[in-house]
């Protein structure tokens, strides 16, 4: 790869969305809408084109030579060389550099490609919105931040991108800022993300302060390539950090995962994602399905050299992932808001990806990310069409019978649902089954995590087809549903492109333990993520594959039985196992728990500080001193007649006293 070419290309890729944002922001929303409608998606699609050029240029090189690091500028350097009476002191130093390699290019392709489609869709979706320009400013800012996140070769800039996407996400969730619920949801998302950022920052500190080079010298670097090159076996972190002891790498792994969990809505930092559906639907598709929420997966995959050294941390990652997948699946079955169902499905699917990268199946996790980006964006955009035509109704109980009125949308949504459920030939089938298959050979507690993962399949296909049935089939249950109409072409074409992608991209990687292997995808990522790991034997893998498909179909069958035929009563669960239903419907009460355990104590503490400590203790101390002084002053007050001569008298009197004292000493 030609460094100059890559420099220019990456500058273009990062610069175009930035420019789009700046132009929109600095003109203070005065640009004509038509211009913005071209510029907003235009910059992203142009960045996509540049990414494709990068990809082509990369593919022309041998697989061993597909990574390149480009330094843009020195961000800061606090080190001092010796001289002028100062001995050398090493301080923090960091460059702004980007890393172009297969993993980052894959992420860039998804971000700019799917992001571009969603931008185009947004032109239609937001056409009548008052904040059209503001919307595209934030969207472009998000693309920039997300690209920064995945391209950065410096830990600090990864953190910067990490926090900037959080801001962009906040701004877009609270985009309709006159809705109080949107405002609160935005704040919740932002604060949760900042918690994750802090974890990431602390992890970065640990790496920076403790990483040693081959000679045993401290490296003090935030350059990610240097970090990865030196964390492998034989070049360990130094374990001298007092209380951290031998668990240093584990601590780093857990701290980094704290950031990943916040971003990817994994337990225990997951509660913001469903609320984030307050934002416009394209936002949900772009940020809360395709790109930002998968950043956690990217982070763990990118830092796999560290997780390979920290099996405990990796196991924690895997367990949290699979646990979140199960929990979100259960919650998704009882929700009525169409976007929230998809949001919980996102949480669940990302749980599976996190599980994959936790057990070491990095390439499988990334493949699931890739297909998921296609079909989940598809589902959100199709749901967006529905919501748009129903005038912002999101409750599936108010829908019904839309398949006749919105045929294209219906079929697209159905393809998305099939892909999500992992029904064969659709993208999700290839990625998810491969991913789950790894659970039979890798990670902790084999094969029990696989058992959980594969049983999530039932839930997945159940909740998504439940939405398909409730929303699209049957009879319309509201006026809006009766008057629903198909979306305009601008919003339909991106949906259909995504539907096509969701059907075909699975064929990029067919890897079922030796059945007709096609390994385009994993071979592409191999230079970064290493070879796919040994799998279970072909027979067991085949059985597992079969089990997965059967369970998915079981979910669809259940929906058919409950909603189409009425063979099983709808309220079976809510009657027989009311506690389970309530648990699911109330999202396992996490919001309430956090409210009681964290939010309220903090607010109570703050109120105490303001209402009690400030006026009584702090000001009180001051007032107390003043009162003591004041009382003393009252005693002396009889002297303060206000007559100048009395003051003079006192002065004279004491001057004489002083003189007497002096005189006695002198004589």
């Amino acid at each position, binding site marked *: 790869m030609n460094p100059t070419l890559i420099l220019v290309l990456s500058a273009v890729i990062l610069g175009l969305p930035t420019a789009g944002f700046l132009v929109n922001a600095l003109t203070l929303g005065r640009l004509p809408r038509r211009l913005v409608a071209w510029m907003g998606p235009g910059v992203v699609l142009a960045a996509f084109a540049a990414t494709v050029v990068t990809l082509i240029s990369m593919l022309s090189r041998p697989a061993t030579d597909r990574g390149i690091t480009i330094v843009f500028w020195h961000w800061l350097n606090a080190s001092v060389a010796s001289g002028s009476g100062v001995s050398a002191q090493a301080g923090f130093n960091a460059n702004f550099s980007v890393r172009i390699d297969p993993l980052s290019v894959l992420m860039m392709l998804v971000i700019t490609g799917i992001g571009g489609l969603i931008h185009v869709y947004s032109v239609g979706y937001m056409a009548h919105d008052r904040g059209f320009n503001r919307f595209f400013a934030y969207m472009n800012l998000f693309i920039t931040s997300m690209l920064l996140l995945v391209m950065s070769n410096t830990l600090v800039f990864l953190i910067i991108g990490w926090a900037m996407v959080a801001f962009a996400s906040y701004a877009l969730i609270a985009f309709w800022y006159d809705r109080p619920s949107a405002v609160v949801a935005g704040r919740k998302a932002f604060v949760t993300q900042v918690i994750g950022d802090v974890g990431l920052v602390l992890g970065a500190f640990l790496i920076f302060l403790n990483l040693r080079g081959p000679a045993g010298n401290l490296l003090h670097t935030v350059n990610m390539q240097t970090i990865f090159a030196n964390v492998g076996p034989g070049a360990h972190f130094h374990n001298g950090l007092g209380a951290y002891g031998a668990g240093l790498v584990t601590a780093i792994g857990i701290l980094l995962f704290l950031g990943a969990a916040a971003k990817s809505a994994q337990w225990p930092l997951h509660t913001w994602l469903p609320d984030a559906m307050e934002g416009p639907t394209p936002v949900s598709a772009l940020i809360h399905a395709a790109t930002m929420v998968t950043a956690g997966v990217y982070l763990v995959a990118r830092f796999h050299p560290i997780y390979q050294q920290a099996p405990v941390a990796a196991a924690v990652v895997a367990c949290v992932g699979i646990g979140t997948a199960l929990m979100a699946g259960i919650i998704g079955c009882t929700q009525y808001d169409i976007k929230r169902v998809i949001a919980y499905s996102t949480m669940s699917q990302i749980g599976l990806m996190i599980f994959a990268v936790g057990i070491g199946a990095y390439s499988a996790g990334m493949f699931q990310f890739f297909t998921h980006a296609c079909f989940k964006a598809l589902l959100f955009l199709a749901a967006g069409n529905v919501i748009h035509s129903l005038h912002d109704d999101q409750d599936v109980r108010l829908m019904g019978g839309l398949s006749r009125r919105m045929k294209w949308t219906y079929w697209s949504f159905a393809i998305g649902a099939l892909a999500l459920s992992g029904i064969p030939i659709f993208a999700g089938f290839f990625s998810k089954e491969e991913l789950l298959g790894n659970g039979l050979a890798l990670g902790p507690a084999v094969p029990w995590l696989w058992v959980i993962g594969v049983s999530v399949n039932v839930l997945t296909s159940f909740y998504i087809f439940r939405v398909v049935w409730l929303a699209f089939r049957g009879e319309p249950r509201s006026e809006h549903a009766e008057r629903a109409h198909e979306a305009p072409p601008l919003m339909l074409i991106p949906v259909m492109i995504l539907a096509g992608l969701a059907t075909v991209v699975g064929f990029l990687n067919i890897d079922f333990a030796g059945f007709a292997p096609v390994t385009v995808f994993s071979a592409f990522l191999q230079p970064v993520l290493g070879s796919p790991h040994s799998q279970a034997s072909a027979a067991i893998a085949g059985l597992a594959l079969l089990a997965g498909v059967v369970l998915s179909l079981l979910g669809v069958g259940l929906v058919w039985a409950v909603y189409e035929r009425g063979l099983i009563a709808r309220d079976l669960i809510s009657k027989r196992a009311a506690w389970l239903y309530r648990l699911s419907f109330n999202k396992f009460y996490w919001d309430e728990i956090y409210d009681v355990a964290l939010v309220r104590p903090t607010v109570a503490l703050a109120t105490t500080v303001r209402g009690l400590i400030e006026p009584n203790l702090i000001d009180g101390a001051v007032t107390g001193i003043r009162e003591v002084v004041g009382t003393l002053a009252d005693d002396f007050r009889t002297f303060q*007649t*206000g*007559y*100048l*001569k009395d003051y*003079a*008298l006192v002065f*004279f009197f004491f001057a004489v006293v002083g003189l007497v004292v002096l005189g006695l000493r002198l004589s």
Partner: protein
Amino acid sequence: MTGLFPGFLILSAGLFSVGAVGVLVRRNPLVVFMSIELMLNAANLALITFARYTQTMAGQVFALFVIAVAASEVVVGLALITGVYRSGRRLDLDELSEMSE
């Protein structure tokens, strides 16, 4: 002559005390001013005494300055007193006070 040295100083102290008492007890601003002049003169006497007995010039020169300061003080002070008188108030320092509550 040397024997008179304490005499000059005691006289100076006595004059100063009398002047100080005058400042403290009299309420007529004119008399208070005169008492201040008394105190300044007492100080002058001390200055000149010391100058004479240490055979230096500084005391005399400073006595000269004191006279100049006293003169300017009287000028301004008397102007103030006439001003106060013209504004129709009684010439009584205690009644003129604005500092008492």
